[in-house]
């Protein structure tokens, strides 16, 4: 039995005295799995993703990712954890408009202390692999939505993370671009990349993941494996 990449035990999170966003949630994800997290708006999907990424801390329970107790990390340690182990893809890309595509991709590596030359080499490799290398010196504003999301995926992979987290990665894309990104994620998983995808889109869940969990009102209520 391989060691889980993600292990959540009885995790709770409540915001400002409101109803719990997550209540007693437990989840285990093994290396190489691709997990889709489904659920309606406000169900706790993004909270779950934030807790795994170390962007937020639970009120109770434990979050362990790649052997690291994420729920115990301070802000600085969480930042180091993210850049070493986590790649994130956002719904609205969150590319930095003032940086070129290549600099956007290189940024997490440089923040981790990689030299500029090495970071640029890795950036070029990834952009080429994802088919957007012709835009390396362009600014994100000139790219289509699908191209931007490919750049965002390249940026997420630059530090060779143990885990790739994607929050509604096709939510802001037209259907053709959405399919491209879906195929890209499936390809990455096929190469062994562990993947957690938060989405409303059942088609996306089916096409690029091999397991689905549902969250309703803060509870992990269902789990399907395909």
């Amino acid at each position, binding site marked *: 039995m391989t060691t889980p990449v993600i292990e959540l035990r009885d995790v709770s999170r409540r915001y400002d005295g409101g109803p719990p966003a997550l209540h007693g949630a437990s989840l285990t994800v093994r290396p190489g799995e691709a997990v889709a997290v489904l659920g309606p708006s406000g169900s706790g999907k993004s909270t779950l993703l934030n807790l795994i990424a170390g962007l937020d801390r639970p009120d109770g329970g434990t979050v362990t990712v790649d052997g690291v107790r994420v729920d115990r990390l301070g802000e600085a340690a969480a*930042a180091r954890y993210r850049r070493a182990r986590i790649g994130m893809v956002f719904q609205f890309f969150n590319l930095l408009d003032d940086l070129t595509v290549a*600099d956007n991709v290189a940024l997490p590596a440089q923040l981790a202390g990689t030299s500029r030359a090495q970071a640029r080499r890795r950036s070029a490799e990834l952009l080429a692999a994802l088919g957007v290398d012709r835009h390396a010196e362009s600014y994100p504003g000139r790219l289509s939505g699908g191209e931007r999301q490919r750049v965002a995926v390249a940026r997420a992979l630059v530090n060779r993370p143990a885990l790739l987290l994607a929050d509604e990665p096709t939510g802001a894309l037209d259907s053709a671009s959405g399919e491209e990104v879906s195929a890209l994620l499936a390809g990455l998983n096929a190469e062994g990349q562990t993947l957690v995808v938060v989405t409303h889109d059942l088609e996306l869940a089916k096409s690029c993941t091999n397991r689905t969990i549902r969250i309703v009102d803060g509870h992990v209520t269902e789990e399907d494996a395909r």
Partner: protein
Amino acid sequence: MSALGRVVRAGLGRRRVQAVVIGLAAMMAVTASVLGGSLLVASSAPFDTSFEEQRGAHVIARYSADAGPPEAAAPPEVTASAGPFPTATATPDAGAGVDRAPLVIAGRADPGGPVDAVAVTAGRWVAGPGEVVLATDGPGGERLLGREVRFAELDTALTVVGVARSVGRTAEAWVLPAVLAEPEGYQVLYRLAAADTAERVDAATAAIGAAGGGFTGARSWLVVRHEAVRETAVFVPFLAAFGVLGLVMSVLVVGNAVAGAVASGTRRIGVLKALGSTPAQVVWAYLAQALVPASAGTALGVGAGYLLAVPVLADAGEVFGTTARPVDPLVGVVVVAGALGVVAVTGLAAAWRAGRLRTADALAVGRTPRPGRGRRAGRLFARLPLPRPVGLGLARPFARPARALALVAAVVFGTAAVTFAVGLGATLAEVQSARQPDAADVAIGGGGPGGLAAPPTAAPQPGGQPPPVRRVDAGAVAAAVDAQPGTAGHYGVSRAKTSVPGVPGTVVGLGFSGDTSSSSYRLISGTWFHGPGEAVVPAPLLSATGTRVGDTITVEDRGRPVALRIVGEVFDTRNDGLQVLTDAASFPGLPPTSYHVTVRPGTDLDAYLAGLNAALGPLGSEARPGRSSGFSDMLFLIGGLTAILTLMLVVVAGLGVLNAVVLDTRERVRELGVHKALGMTPRQTMTAVVCSIVPPGVVGGAVGVPVGVALHGVIVPAMGDSAGTRLPAAAYAVFSPAALALFVVGGLLIAVLGALLPAGWAARTRTANALRAE
């Protein structure tokens, strides 16, 4: 609460930091303005105001003691009189460290009366024959309270029970009339119906003199006024410079804070308009959001300004030789109206612009990125071998040039203020040093009638005659100084009462012997004299004689004409600048009345003095420490005011930076969230934010330093002009290259300090919250 009121309250709650910045900026600006304004009012006519309050004497008439106490004259010009008061001249001996110049003592049982109400500033008025009250501007002051001072000429020792101020300087000490049983003369103090011109005072004095009673002479209040006004005039350009700096910077910072607050709320304005608010309602809502914190800050600032002004005005009163003035309420009213006016105008302009925006455009602001700006800089910094957070920070100002300019402006003013203030402090130190040109480690003798002789401490001779002044062998004194181990050098000064054709009154001739290189005389132009027949003179004498450096003047010394070629202009404010400084051989037969000694480094001064006095004692002379401690009151006050006003300007500049960085970090909160999500640590976030103010900080410092130097170059000569003299070159050349470089760093420091708070806030912001921010 109305809908508009709710919008205002919610807006204030949502932007607490900006509200605090507006409030603090307004508070600092108002505090500085109240303080500066109060000082300007107090400086405008301090002597005249105090003179009227204390019913100062327009004419101090002197009468001979031969005919007994005179009756006050009553010509029509006189409206009130006080006296006759017996007078005498006596030299105090209060021990080491106290000047022993003779004092004019008046016998008065009561400090009040119809003329010259003497204000007791410490202790009490004399109540018994063994007591004396000293004038505040005399020797010792409050230090001598309770001490016994011996007056050899009066054959008595008197206890100092009070310190008092006569605005017309009618005497330097007061005793009960009974103490002066055998006075040298009498004084009668007169107030006149009209005393605004010298002609009127002279006419009234002539009428007083014509009434007889042993009248021997009089002094006009205009003489005292001239001295007082000349001393205080130096403040005006100094305060005006700080006032203008403070005002411009306050307008800049408050205006920028208000405009920034409105501009950053543009999207919210769009939402309000989409919900049905009219442009006018939007304008009023945002104006109110600026005025509420500004009003609170203004109220606090007025209070703080008044509190701070009380001790400062008390100090100013000391310097002006007047009683402490209350804070003028009009200053507060004008400052409050001005501050709120600035806020209202700036806020109105910004809110009006936002109110007129089309709703769709307003809603789009803050969502649509502004592409293009600063990308070249971003590429450049990305390619430099710098840590990535540093490069990201350095490139930031180029993306928001208008905000960067506001930052630069705040730093320029802060740096200029610091540069100007430090330069002014150094200038004042130079001036202070030059005002005491004979200050040395050790002094022997002084300018009094006794010359090198130790002050008389012996009992008077039979018949009440003062002890005879001993003649001291100057050559023996010089030899004793030379022989004393530890002596590095010394020079002697002889003093002659001379006259110069065309110059009314006495011109003091100072003859120097020995090595004067250790003295603190500062030349304004020309060279120091090289031998007899050459002289250096202060500007007032050049002006009075209509001469220039290179001309020759004739000085009459004891009936003998002495031709002296002026080879230099020296800074010397003593005796109103009516002095001639020359080689001692120019005044032959005149022995030194003082010696000024420099000791070798590391010499124990107390042991040196003890050894030297053992040698001088048998010669009838005495050595004492040659430097009075620290700055004079006026220079000390200027230094204190400079520090306070500079600190305020620096704080206001820091608030300007704080406001700009707060606006920027708020605006970039989502971008910062992305950085953090990608692995930027809190320390790297802080580094990026702090580095974003480095370019404006460096540019602001580099511009602010020359501005401060230029301001110094304009204000210092103006201060000299106000004081009626030119200043020595050393007073201008106070900035070393190293100091200037430090000031540039100081500008950067102001910027960094102002940015630390928002940088810390950015570093602490939870990543998830930042990513959710709109």
